[in-house]
């Protein structure tokens, strides 16, 4: 019953619009999930130890959080309406399953974040340190709960489970627990939350290192650099393990995606090579100029050198994902992942040598790795979202059957408008964030809205609260 309304052009444009608005959006949650937790840790340390440096760092990062969170909210509202405006056939068919999960995300996460954000940003003086810490915790919890629901919804589209199809052709739930805890969800959730923590740690570490390069005695930058590097040291190896497990899960449920990631156009009955680099050609169905390590792919994916691995030659041509994009974005993500782990090990070595705050090479490396988390997150999402093409609900609903009945000019105009507005707005926002980061955190750092001169800067928590009230 599904006529194909949109022309091929309209569908390409709708996909471009989703990819563009989503890529802009995901950067901010990836940052604010990690930053909210970091802020909660800083405030807890301040309450626990009473050391002023933690409050200074808290206020320093809180201002940056406020700007980033605002951009995440407005770009997120756009996403919640994209399903209806550009993908209305998808919304009609999957609304009974995706909709409730998004509604739960709003009810359990967005309201929690929004409700306590005002108190977190501006309310320390009004509610006192303990209730304020509760507000910070609620915001941090909200970001994680939000990740839970949206990744569950995305995972259901990748590995649908617990559903039935009604006479109108709609997917309906048969078992909510199976829908929510669908096969790829636990892996995706762990992988993404760790990615968000690493992304934030790299930003915090880069800002700390940047200021240490200018003056390695600054208390604030020393603390944040050290905290961030512990994160990189400990979490990067865990992330590599989690990514490997996620890959094995994908091999089981979305084998064509793994074939695209690995560049395996043809099957290998006795041990598949790991293609390090090469130029995948969709037309010729082979990877040109491939540099391969024999049998390694089978070892990684099947834990056996000679295990057979099927290739895209076993998949009908019309179900092939676009291999070149999937292949390259995957290599970018993995390459950055290993670089992040290398940074963590390097910092551990310098810590052990007692040169952690002196080794300029470490600090320069950390500054350069500042944006690495964002790029890795984007590359990872490109891998998983192009790798599941040509389906929106894997194996069940094709992307071409999901689009709205819109004419190409309508989508082209809105895409153009999004591109212009996002570049203006988010370029300004990133500039403001970088400007905030360019100044080091100082003694008696004030929270958001510190354009009014403060009367005094405190040293103990109580005095800082009083100083906060003066602003």
């Amino acid at each position, binding site marked *: 019953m599904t006529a194909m309304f949109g022309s091929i052009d309209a569908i390409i444009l709708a996909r471009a619009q989703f990819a563009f608005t989503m890529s802009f959006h995901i950067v901010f949650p990836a940052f604010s999930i990690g930053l909210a937790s970091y802020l909660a840790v800083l405030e807890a340390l301040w309450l626990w130890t009473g050391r002023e440096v933690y409050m200074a760092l808290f206020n320093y990062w809180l201002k940056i959080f406020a700007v980033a969170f605002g951009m995440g909210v407005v770009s997120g509202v756009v996403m919640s309406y994209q399903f209806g405006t550009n993908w209305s056939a998808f919304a009609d068919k999957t609304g009974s399953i*995706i909709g409730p999960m998004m509604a739960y995300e709003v009810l359990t996460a967005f309201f929690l974040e929004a409700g306590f954000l005002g108190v977190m940003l501006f309310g320390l003086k009004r509610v006192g340190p303990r209730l304020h810490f509760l507000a910070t915790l609620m915001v941090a919890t909200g970001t994680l709960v939000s990740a839970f629901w949206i990744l569950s919804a995305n995972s259901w589209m990748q590995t649908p489970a617990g559903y039935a199809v009604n006479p109108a052709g709609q997917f309906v739930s048969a078992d909510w627990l199976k829908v929510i805890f669908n096969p790829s969800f636990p892996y995706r959730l762990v992988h993404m939350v760790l990615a968000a923590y690493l992304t934030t740690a790299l930003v915090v570490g880069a800002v700390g290192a940047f200021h240490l390069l200018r003056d390695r005695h600054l208390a604030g930058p020393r603390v944040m650099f050290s905290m961030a590097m512990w994160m990189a040291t400990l979490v990067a190896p865990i992330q590599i393990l989690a990514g490997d497990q996620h890959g094995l899960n994908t091999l089981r449920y979305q084998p064509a995606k793994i074939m695209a990631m690995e560049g395996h156009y043809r099957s290998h009955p006795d041990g598949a090579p790991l293609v390090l680099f090469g130029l995948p050609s969709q037309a010729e169905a082979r990877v040109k100029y491939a540099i391969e390590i024999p049998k390694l792919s089978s070892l990684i994916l099947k834990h056996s050198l000679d295990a057979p691995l099927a290739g895209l030659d076993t998949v009908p041509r019309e179900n092939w994902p676009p291999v070149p994009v999937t292949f390259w974005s995957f290599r970018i993500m993995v390459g950055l992942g290993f670089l992040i782990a290398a940074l963590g090990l390097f910092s551990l070595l310098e810590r052990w040598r007692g040169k952690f705050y002196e080794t300029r090479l470490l600090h320069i490396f950390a500054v350069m790795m500042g944006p690495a988390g964002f790029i890795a997150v984007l590359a990872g999402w490109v891998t998983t979202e192009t790798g599941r093409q040509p389906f929106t609900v894997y194996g069940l609903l094709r992307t071409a059957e999901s689009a709205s009945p819109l004419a190409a000019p309508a989508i082209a105009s809105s895409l153009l408008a999004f591109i212009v507005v996002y570049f203006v707005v988010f370029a300004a926002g990133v500039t403001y964030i970088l400007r905030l980061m360019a100044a080091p955190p100082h003694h008696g750092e004030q929270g958001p809205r510190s354009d009014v001169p403060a009367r005094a800067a405190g040293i103990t928590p109580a005095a800082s609260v009083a100083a906060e009230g003066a602003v």
Partner: protein
Amino acid sequence: MIPIDLPTIWAFIIAFAVFVYVVMDGFDLGLGILFPLFPAKAHRDVIMNSVAPVWDGNETWLVLGGGGLMAAFPLAYAVLMPALYTPMIAMLLGLVFRGVAFEFRWRTTRSGRNRWDIAFAGGSLLATLAQGVALGAILQGVHVEARHYAGGWWDWLTPFSILTSAALVIGYALLGATWLVMKTEGDLRDRAYRLSWVFLVLMIAAIGAVSIATPFLHVQYTHRWFAWPGIVLTAPVPVAVAGVTALLTRSLAKKYDYQPFLLSLALFALSYAGLGISMYPYIVPQSITIWQAASPERSQLFMLFGVAVLIPLILGYTGWAYWVFRGKVKVESGFH
């Protein structure tokens, strides 16, 4: 025992979410609309600070309205969104501009601040115009064939939708002006009083114009409002509007602080009830009823559980946040 009708319950829940959105984001969009009328930086700082801690929560109700509609009435969502394509995109872009302005205007130089002030005002106006047009377009009905929107991408633009759009701008401006009466003092509040008068008069004219125009759209609306037994339900609405208007006039004349805002909310509630009376039981007027659009019982029940537990909690902590930032916002010692 009357069987519980889930789609009707859900129609009320979505209507409630949209109403909370309309009045909560209504007053802060209204502040954006009024922004050009308050050129002084000190005034603008106070206006921004009066909503900075709560605007994000206000906007979340819009996400709940959209997400809830998709979840509870996926067919309506799938039909209405393409039908309202241009207004929806315009609204989202307007909300982007005004949303970021809350933080950006504090992080920049004087000329940069002026730019973000324009973005705040322009974005608020654009979002309101788009919401008003969308309201008119929904009331006049959209062209549906076989579960899909089948009209063009300019169908939403009619004299009626322009009228509802202007009416919503006026309504939000009234909410914004009375909010300022409640939250500010001194010459800022004096100006807000004067603006409240202006927008109250315009609001009554707008309610009148929309009320006269709506019955002409569809014979169903005429029947609903003027035929027995509907008239039992509908007749009290205009009477209540007249009563609230009288009280609002009195509270403005006596220069009360809280009453003008609360009575403006009541005026919105009555207008909203009027719209609900016109539309029920259609969710896409004249083509799709709430029962036709409803998602399966299993989906609606699953969410109903969450709504029943979480909405009271949300209202609780949202109320707490408003309570924390209660009282007048002062120029010299705001919480910024």
